[in-house]
């Protein structure tokens, strides 16, 4: 079984492909998108996606805007921000808007993998808790 299902969003397709190849090798299920809009479409059509790796700086809809939209429409999906230029501000802004974490690009693949695992775990736990809550709710209603 795959470690997690991850959507990589970056306008630099070379980067997306290289990262996808390496994460796939580490048993990560990969989806690809080259813009914010495409990412939202993929999320809408693919319910398996657990974690989004999101580039901050993109033409059109940028990372921060995409993040806000993901938070609004897919609150359970975790987002890891990748900041291309070494400014902490955009990372912090991402965190404020509900990103799971942020990493400088280029980043160490093992660190990224660890973050992805963490995020996926958090997401799964939350989902489990939601399921448990629902079950309790239904049980209580029956009783």
């Amino acid at each position, binding site marked *: 079984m795959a470690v997690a299902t991850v959507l990589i969003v970056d306008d*630099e397709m*070379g*980067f997306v492909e*290289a*990262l996808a*190849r*390496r994460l796939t*090798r580490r048993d990560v299920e990969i989806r690809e998108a080259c813009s914010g809009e495409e990412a939202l479409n993929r999320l809408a059509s693919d319910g398996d996606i657990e974690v989004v790796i999101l580039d901050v*700086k*993109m*033409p*059109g809809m*940028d990372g921060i805007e995409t993040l806000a939209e993901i938070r609004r429409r897919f609150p359970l999906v975790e987002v890891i921000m990748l900041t*291309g*230029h*070494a400014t902490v501000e955009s990372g912090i802004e991402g965190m404020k808007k509900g990103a799971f974490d942020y990493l400088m*690009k*280029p980043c160490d*693949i093992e660190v990224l993998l660890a973050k992805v695992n963490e995020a996926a775990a958090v997401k799964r736990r939350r989902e489990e808790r939601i399921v448990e809550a629902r079950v309790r709710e239904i049980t209580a209603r029956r009783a």
Partner: protein
Amino acid sequence: MDETRQMHPEYTLLARKMFLTILVVSYVPVLLVSLTIYLQFRGVYRQKVEDHLVEMVRKHKQQIDAFLHARLADVRFLAQSFGRDTLSEEAFLQRQLAFLQGAYGATFVDLGVIDARGRQISYAGPFKLGQAEYAGAAWFQQAMAERAVISDVFLGLRGLPHFIVAVCSGEGQDAWVLRATIDFEAFNKLVGGIHIGATGVAFIVNRDGEFQTTGPASPIAAEKVFGGYQTCAVDPSRKIHVYSHPDENGVRSIYVTGLLKDRNWLLVYRQQAADAFHQLRRAEKMSLFFFILGGMLIVVMALVISRRMASRVTKADREKEIMRRQVIETSKLAGIGELAAGVAHEINNPVAVMIEEAGWIQDLMEDERISEPEDRAEIQRALQQIHTQGRRCKEITAKLLSFARGSDGSIRLLDINQIIEDVIRLVAQQAKFTHIEVETVLAPDLPPLSGSETEMHQVVLNLVNNALQAMAKDGGRLTVFSEVDGPWIVIGVQDTGPGIPAANLERIFDPFFTTKPVGQGTGLGLSICYGIIKKMGGRIEVDSRVGQGTTFRVVVPVPPTTS
């Protein structure tokens, strides 16, 4: 000297202008003052000389008049004291002559008593004139008519120049005349005593222009003397008359004349003007010498000062030009700095790809299945990708470096469209991430423009940067265009930003005017652009509407050689 020889023509012109200005400013007052002083001095000096001559002539005129009247009085005294009969005795007359000669020296030559018919009754003197007949003599007739006479100088019976002083006594047939002959030499001494300078001489002429004393050694225009005489006669109020006139040789002389002897004689004093005014001439020569010497000094000083000033101005201008280039260079680097974020991201992307590809190769190497052909192909592909991305990085740095290279300020023919494209290439990435659409509308057959490439880059980059910053928040559309408008080339930078408020519009070209937060803008960009374009003989126009956007138009003249 070497410095000035290397001077640019405009500095040579400046030096020449300064030289002329210094010369005129120094020389004109000196000239005016000198001329005024000289004219005043000359007038006063001439007046003084003339006054002196007039005074001298007046004094001599009085002396001569007094002398003549005294002689007349002497004769009248004799005639009235002794009567005809007493004086007719020759011995008595001889005695009287001796008395007179004893008192006045050789002035009285002889004495004679003449009856009403003109016959000399008695005579005392050195000549044998005993029975001389004077009925026809002018002086005798005049004495009979006017009772007293002082005659003109004449030769008479004795053949020597002399003149007669005679008085008439008695009436009708009893009338008789006592006459005395005045020695010409003795009289001449009175007048000849007037000697001033080398050429000053005095003499007396009568109404007919005949000399009554020894005439001047050099020739004299008798009619001119007479003319002066006439003037005096016509205008009796001017007792002494001064005028100057050149003689036949062209030598100008001063004449001072005064009437004598009941206006029958004219005392003339003549002196060559050069002689009379020789001290003035000496002063003139000395002044002229010093004036020329001073003038030469002024010329030398003006030359030295103007050259020194021009060389200083040259140096200052050169330093100013260096400063200007440094400011442009600095502001250009600042402009590139503003682009740094975009460029950094642009480089970061291929770097990230390269690192991931390298990581991928590492991943593959960790496998033992490395020898498998598909792995080898994969490594090959990854290396190719690294190569491609490395090349991309190189291109980015190359375009940045080509832009940031030193400003040599050298003037060459520029392709404006190429410059616009250089700038757009540099900012394209930044525009992409700030939602700004970039459009270029370039005139295809733009004539080349002569100017400094780095300065032109600076102008376009600055305007484009400003436009991008204006739209950074909300995005928009940047249009950069070039066009030919008659003798002008127009470079336009148009944005759809918030526009510039009217209050700021007037100040945007002022140095240090900025609306950016402290530390983000120097406020020098537009003022430097303005300076660059103005130096090229062009202008920058701005049209801004709040809420709609701003258009900057750089208008520069097409150089005549390329138009």
